[in-house]
């Protein structure tokens, strides 16, 4: 069917640019995916919390950093307070923990699911509204908490049906520790960090060319995109490093890896010492989860011991977020399974009451059912009062007489 419209037209009538509608079928499958994620979180003892879509700008800014702040949807409350639509939800959970749950026994295991909004440029293939589901484990400083979050994120993705899950574990202090122990400071440290932040190996090479750096540190930094492997990677890296601080990071990762073995996830995990993450936000182990079916990380997480102090006492915390829409895109790309359609109850004139009762009985048995609003056309049939049709399964139709329905 041709669709009317032309290039002069406004975007889809009544919908803001950069946002999506989720249509029948897709909307339900997306909801099912979130439900599978949250059910996994709850099975690990994480309690669901719901926080507002709107927070004071100062609160939201604490979570997204100064670079992210410009990408928030901002507006003013009646009293002049600057508000923002949340760009991620960890900061809201942190606020709740530091205020209303400050007397709760630690550690606290909380989870959430909801939309987040970013004022990203149009036409770059990114949605402005995204669904995120995540967990926060607050009040636990050890690597056992980090391992739990990593294993839980991976399990949630697997339970959601995401194929080919692969976990990359890094540490937010490794690169800064290497830079510091290499004696880098001021301008040269900033140049190397900026290049790493831009994932630009060519710029890292250029920045190190003009800088005095120890041979071991130089080799590590120049190999940053390839510093990946299993537990033996830690021994190889430690051999080279004379300084205590990066070695302490490696020791911590070794303990974390042993715990991940207990969680039975090391089969799909790598250590990634060159992982590029927000080094100002994260303070310890970090991780990302990938799938062969997506060009984007599907889960991102890590330890953020500095965040809670924005709202109250300092508390160690670790957590992660699942990017539900990216997961959904990866799943939809692969599976073409037709959604189960509800059974349809059709009826002859005079049998509407019995048909409604039949539909109700089906629903009570867990079968989705639609009851026709109008009778079947044609002559009344004494033998058949109502018909149930399943379009998805094998059973195409069953006919009932009035006596059977009664």
């Amino acid at each position, binding site marked *: 069917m041709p669709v009317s419209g032309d290039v002069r037209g406004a975007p889809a009538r009544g919908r803001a640019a950069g946002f999506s509608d989720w249509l029948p079928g897709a909307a339900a499958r997306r909801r099912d995916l979130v439900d599978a994620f949250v059910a996994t979180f709850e099975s690990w003892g994480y309690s669901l919390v719901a926080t507002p879509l709107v927070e004071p700008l100062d609160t939201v800014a604490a979570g997204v950093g100064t670079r992210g702040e410009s990408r928030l949807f901002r507006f003013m409350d009646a009293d002049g307070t600057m508000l923002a639509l949340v760009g991620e939800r960890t900061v809201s959970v942190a606020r709740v923990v530091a205020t209303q749950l400050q007397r709760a026994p630690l550690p606290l295991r909380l989870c959430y699911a909801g939309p987040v909004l970013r004022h990203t440029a149009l036409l*770059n*293939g990114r949605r402005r509204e995204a669904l995120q589901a995540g967990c926060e484990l607050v009040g636990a400083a050890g690597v056992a908490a980090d391992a739990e979050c990593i294993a839980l994120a991976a399990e949630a993705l697997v339970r959601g049906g995401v194929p*080919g899950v*692969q976990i*990359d574990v890094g540490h937010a202090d490794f690169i800064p520790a290497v830079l510091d122990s290499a004696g880098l400071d001021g301008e040269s440290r900033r140049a190397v960090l900026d290049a790493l932040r*831009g*994932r*630009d*190996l*060519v*710029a890292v*090479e250029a920045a190190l060319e003009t800088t005095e750096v120890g041979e071991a540190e130089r080799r590590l930094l120049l190999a940053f*995109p*390839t510093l*990946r492997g299993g537990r033996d990677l830690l021994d190889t890296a430690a051999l080279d490093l004379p300084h205590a601080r990066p070695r302490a990071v490696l020791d911590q990762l070794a303990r974390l890896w042993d715990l991940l073995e207990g969680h039975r996830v090391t089969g799909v995990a*790598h250590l*990634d010492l060159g992982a590029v993450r927000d080094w100002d936000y994260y303070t310890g182990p970090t991780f*990302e989860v*990938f*799938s*062969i079916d*997506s*060009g*984007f*990380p599907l889960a991102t997480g890590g330890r953020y011991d500095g965040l809670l102090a924005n709202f109250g006492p300092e508390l160690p915390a670790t957590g992660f977020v699942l990017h539900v829409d990216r997961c959904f895109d990866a799943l939809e790309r692969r599976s073409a399974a037709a959604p189960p359609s509800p059974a349809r109850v059709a009826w002859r004139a005079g049998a509407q009451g019995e048909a409604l009762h039949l539909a109700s009985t089906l629903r009570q048995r867990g079968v989705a059912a639609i009851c026709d609003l109008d009778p079947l056309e044609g002559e009344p049939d004494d033998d058949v009062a109502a018909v149930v049709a399943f379009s998805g399964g094998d059973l195409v139709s069953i006919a009932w007489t009035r006596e059977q329905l009664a």
Partner: protein
Amino acid sequence: MSGLRLAMPAGALFDGACELLAAAGVARVSEAVFARALMIEDNGTTLIKVRPTDIPVYVEMGAADCGIAGKDVLWESPRECYELVDLRFGSCRMVLAAPEGSPLARGDWSGSLRVATKYPESARRYFAGLSVTAEIIRLHGSIELAAITGMADAVFDITATGTTLRANRLVEVAEAGRSTARLVVNHAALKTKSDAVNALAAALRLAAASHSDEGAA
């Protein structure tokens, strides 16, 4: 062999990219092959040919695992990909040029400038970094004409040899950057196909080094 999908830039960098891929033993392709199909496979690598400015888009979105893009394109539309290797071909410079005898050509940067460019984002960052007020005019081709007709005080553009600038009586006022072709890689591909990506990066790095040595000799 690699199982990777690689995006090739159409236009000025295309021949250089083909030569380098052949020298590195990655794939043998040519303009003629792409005339028949949009996506081709050679030696286990899938190749697509797209407009240079679209390369970072294909790579960031994961439609290609990796791509060959000019640094000038990466400046203009920064995307979240890894930039792994300087491929050392397609050299050009990003320059600010003004008509001979104009105040800017004589070194007078005062007043507000009107600057024509195909690279509005790069230009905006460049002038912001200098704290110079500039009104950026975005054009899509024949940038020099904007200065010749007086629509703009200066042009902000890439130049390889400077011939076009000289032919249009424009003089270089400042250099804003030096560009070469780069290997860019999708974030997830680097992690999920790391062996293939690292092998490709190593092969291209080696070929680029010996290639540019020959060029220097």
